[in-house]
Every structure is written in structure tokens, then in C-alpha cells.
């Protein structure tokens, strides 16, 4: 397995299967594996979200994810990392994104997973279109996401 693995796909995936495959590919000196799963969620429960469509910029997405994954490897001394991101139409509760990191100790695995998610949220060219009972709407960027990403810039 390559040290940094990036995949952008329309097909649905199962987080547990990805996690097990990621763990199986590891070496004997890996003690810590952290995973993050992002799910399609109903922001306010009574909002009536029916589905989400994720548009992306093919080509740029893959380039950005590879650059970010490589930076995470060196910056946090990771053994390996995986970034799996979907695009297209998804239903409520479906996984959108899966990130896994492995390291000798838990500190770097946790930090790297946080770092990768903060960058994915603010730099990767994905746009969310929500379908609700009232129609379609594009999701606005969250100011908190920008603040979260800013803390990694030294």
C-alpha cells in the first residue's frame, strides 16, 4: 500500500470495510489508527433534508488531496494515511468522506486526521447542494471551518 492513498469516487462505500482494510495493510510498529467519517446530516432535524449532491472540480480535487495527504505524512510523521471522498448524489446518513491515519503513537494520528479534515473543509473543491422539502439550496461555507484551518498555518 502506498503511504498516502487518495480516492475520489461517486460510488458509496462502507467506513468499517475501509478501516479494516487500512489496518490490515499496516506494519508491526503501528500502534495507533484514527479514522474520521463524515455523514450526510440533517442540520436541524425538522429541516427535512432529503438528499445532498456534492459537485467537485475533477482533476483539481485529486491534485489537492494528494498534496494535502503528502503534507500530513511528513508534518506529523505518519506511517500512512487514506483520504476517500465521494461526489454526486447521496441520501441522509450516507458517508461522504473517510480519512484514516496511522502512526506509532496516538498524538500524531489524531493531529493528522484533524489537519486533513480542516483542509478538506476549506481547500478541497467540493460544493454541497441540499435537497429539502422546499427545494434546492447551496450550502454556505462555515466561518468556523476557516478558523480551524487557519490554526495549522505557522
Amino acid at each position, binding site marked *: 500500500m502506498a503511504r498516502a492513498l487518495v480516492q475520489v469516487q461517486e460510488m458509496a462505500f462502507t467506513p468499517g470495510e475501509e478501516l479494516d482494510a487500512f489496518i490490515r495493510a499496516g506494519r508491526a510498529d503501528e500502534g495507533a489508527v484514527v479514522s474520521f467519517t463524515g455523514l450526510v446530516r440533517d442540520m436541524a432535524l425538522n429541516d427535512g433534508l432529503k438528499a445532498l449532491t456534492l459537485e467537485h472540480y475533477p482533476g483539481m480535487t485529486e491534485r489537492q488531496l494528494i498534496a494535502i495527504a503528502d503534507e500530513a505524512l511528513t508534518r506529523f510523521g505518519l506511517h500512512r494515511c487514506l483520504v476517500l471522498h465521494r461526489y454526486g448524489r447521496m441520501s441522509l446518513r450516507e458517508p461522504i468522506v473517510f480519512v484514516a491515519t496511522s502512526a506509532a503513537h496516538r498524538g500524531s494520528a489524531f493531529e493528522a486526521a484533524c489537519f486533513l479534515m480542516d483542509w478538506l*473543509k476549506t481547500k478541497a*473543491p467540493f460544493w454541497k447542494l441540499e435537497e429539502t422539502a422546499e427545494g434546492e439550496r447551496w450550502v454556505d461555507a462555515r466561518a468556523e471551518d476557516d478558523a480551524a484551518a487557519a490554526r495549522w498555518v505557522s
Partner: protein
Amino acid sequence: MKVRYFAWLRQRTGCTGEEVDPPEGVRNVADLMAYLGGRHPRFAEACAASGVVRCAVNQEHVGPEHPLAPTDEVAFFPPVTGG
């Protein structure tokens, strides 16, 4: 020069992309935005609101001062909302 639009900027311009041949005065991203605004009034509206239109040249995020070459691929999009 190849221009691409994403998300609601794509809906406002009514196209996913277009080939444009801007006049000589169009030297950087800000110039191109003004030029394209003349073709797409609703794109001009979005550009007038600060911080709403982002740009990538050859698939790298850039600012409004970034210089342009005729072979560049230029993309305009709203702030990203991935993950």
C-alpha cells in the same frame, strides 16, 4: 483561454465552461472577472459581493492579482463546502 464555473456560479452563468479570448488589457484574474461580468450580468453581481467568488488557475487557488496566460485554465467558484 478556458474558463470553468462551479456550483451556483455555474447556475448563474448558465454554463459549465467556455472558451474566451479576452482583449489585451485583461492581464490578471481581477481583469478577467470584470471582462466576464460584461458577458454574464449575474456573474458581475456575485463578483461585486466581496469574498464570494474564488478563483483557481491551472487548478491552484490564486488571488485577484494572479497574472494570466492564454493557455491557462481558469475556474470560478464560491467558497468550498466539502467533507
